[in-house]
């Protein structure tokens, strides 16, 4: 199978107003297969957002290449196909909703790519249905809760029927209920619609849901593997300035104390390992 996203020796250097150079990404090599659920973790400023913005050509590599569905994102003619293939959901739900009515906002992307008027409505309705916001089609976005706004933003991306969606800390501004709704929606998109997910987060409980975790540090990929492979290396994760899920930390401490335990990520697994009878 062809990878849906491929980074080859990708580097990115920002040049700011005073001609100061800042290398945010260094020689990234990465392949993402269709249907994968990838979580990207890393401290502030480690380059997660910069990397994510290469995947739908909001940024282009200053060195190396980024291929989306086999198309080079640096080629001007590939811009719109690339952005239709990879959608993007941002952190602040308020600042990505354009229209003053929910359904008009969901239609925004479709109007941009010139879908004929009569075909737009069914796609808007389907997208709202998927995120469970059908009842709010005619509402004003500013009256909705943060979690609801974020689901509208997801619907707006979903309406374009992308093969892949990049989420850049979508739950950072939400309360626990809103966070749960978004995580459930993301899982649903991945499992039911086979949409490739790239999920940037600082919350390790969310990261462990992924098939593969990429841990970034100072512009390069420091660790890569399944959640088990990554989070059982508690000391290495700590050195990156990150935390492991609580259960993994407890298991690690117990292992250091001489207990024999299998690799552990979740509370359930920890309970199971400690009291097998339950």
């Amino acid at each position: 199978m062809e990878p849906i996203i491929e980074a080859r020796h990708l580097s990115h250097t920002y040049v700011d107003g005073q001609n100061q150079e800042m290398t945010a990404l260094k020689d990234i090599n990465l392949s993402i297969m269709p249907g994968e659920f990838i979580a990207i973790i890393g401290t502030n400023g480690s380059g997660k957002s910069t990397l994510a913005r290469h995947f739908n050509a909001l940024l282009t590599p200053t060195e190396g290449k980024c291929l989306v569905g086999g198309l080079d994102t640096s080629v001007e003619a590939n811009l719109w196909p690339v952005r239709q293939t990879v959608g993007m959901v941002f952190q602040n739900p308020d600042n990505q909703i354009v229209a003053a009515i929910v359904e008009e906002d969901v239609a925004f992307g479709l109007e941009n790519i010139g879908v004929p008027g009569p075909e737009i409505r069914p796609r808007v309705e389907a997208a709202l249905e998927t995120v469970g916001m059908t009842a709010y089609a005619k509402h004003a976005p500013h009256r909705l809760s943060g979690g609801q706004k974020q689901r509208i933003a997801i619907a707006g991306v979903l309406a374009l029927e992308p093969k892949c969606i990049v989420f850049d800390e979508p739950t950072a501004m939400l309360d626990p209920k809103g966070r749960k709704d978004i995580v459930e929606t993301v899982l649903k998109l991945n499992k039911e619609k086979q949409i490739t997910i790239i999920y940037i987060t600082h919350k390790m409980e969310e990261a462990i849901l992924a098939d593969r975790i990429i841990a970034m540090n100072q512009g390069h990929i420091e660790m890569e593997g399944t959640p088990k492979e990554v989070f059982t290396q508690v000391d290495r994760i700590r050195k990156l300035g990150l935390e492991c899920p609580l259960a993994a930390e407890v298991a690690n401490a117990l292992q250091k104390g001489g207990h024999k335990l299998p690799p552990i990520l979740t509370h359930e697994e920890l309970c199971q390992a400690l009291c097998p009878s339950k």
Partner: protein
Amino acid sequence: MLTEITLGQYYPGESVVHHLDPRTKILGVLFYMVMVFLANSPLSYGLLIAFLIAATALAKLPPGLLLKSIKPLWIIILLTLVLHFFTDPGEVLWHWKVFTITKEGIIMGIKMSLRLVLLLLVSSLMTFTTSPIVLTDGIESLLRPFKRVGVPAHELAMMMTIALRFIPTLLEETDRIMKAQMSRGADFSSGNIVQRAKNLLPILIPLFISSFRRADELALAMEARCYHGGEGRTRMHELVYQKRDGAAAFILVLLFAVLVFLRWGMPA
């Protein structure tokens, strides 16, 4: 508080007038304004007023709602009336020291203030029965033919849409910043005008900074959703003229014909 401010003065409803195409209403209002300046006899003014009353009744607006829209401008209306009363030359009806009232003055005063009132009422009728969002669609569609001569129809409409979307959000934010500054001892309600204006700075600066950040993020989000200006863009709701728009146009043209006849067609 601040967030309770509603945008425009839309009065939701399901009447025929509400459902008229926004383009019909905009053009209709412009046409009506022309007619207001065409009218020159009591009968023609009577017809214009009758049309307005009929349209208001058809729109099922509560009586008095429309009259309220005169309120902000009542001083100007009164001033028009009084100035004409006392300054127009003509047949003197009443005289006291430097003050004279003439017959022509009275007629002109009433005519001018009536025109003002009619202009106000007819535009309010439109804004009461059309939501700002629909109005934006109408304006965009009407301006589209003028794109070739450089009118940025789509850009204007997009600006209005974003403004409508973000004004409530920014009001909320202003409220929050005000409360934050008040909790640090800021005082917005005392002092003279200069002091009060100065006191607003701690609100305006954070508001500006956050607006720029919002604009930046919004631009990125729009680009990510394939926005590239008005070219090749379609709309979910294409505006389509209905039979009722034809009917409205017919009535307006009829009114126009009668007014033209009353002005030029009648033997003096």
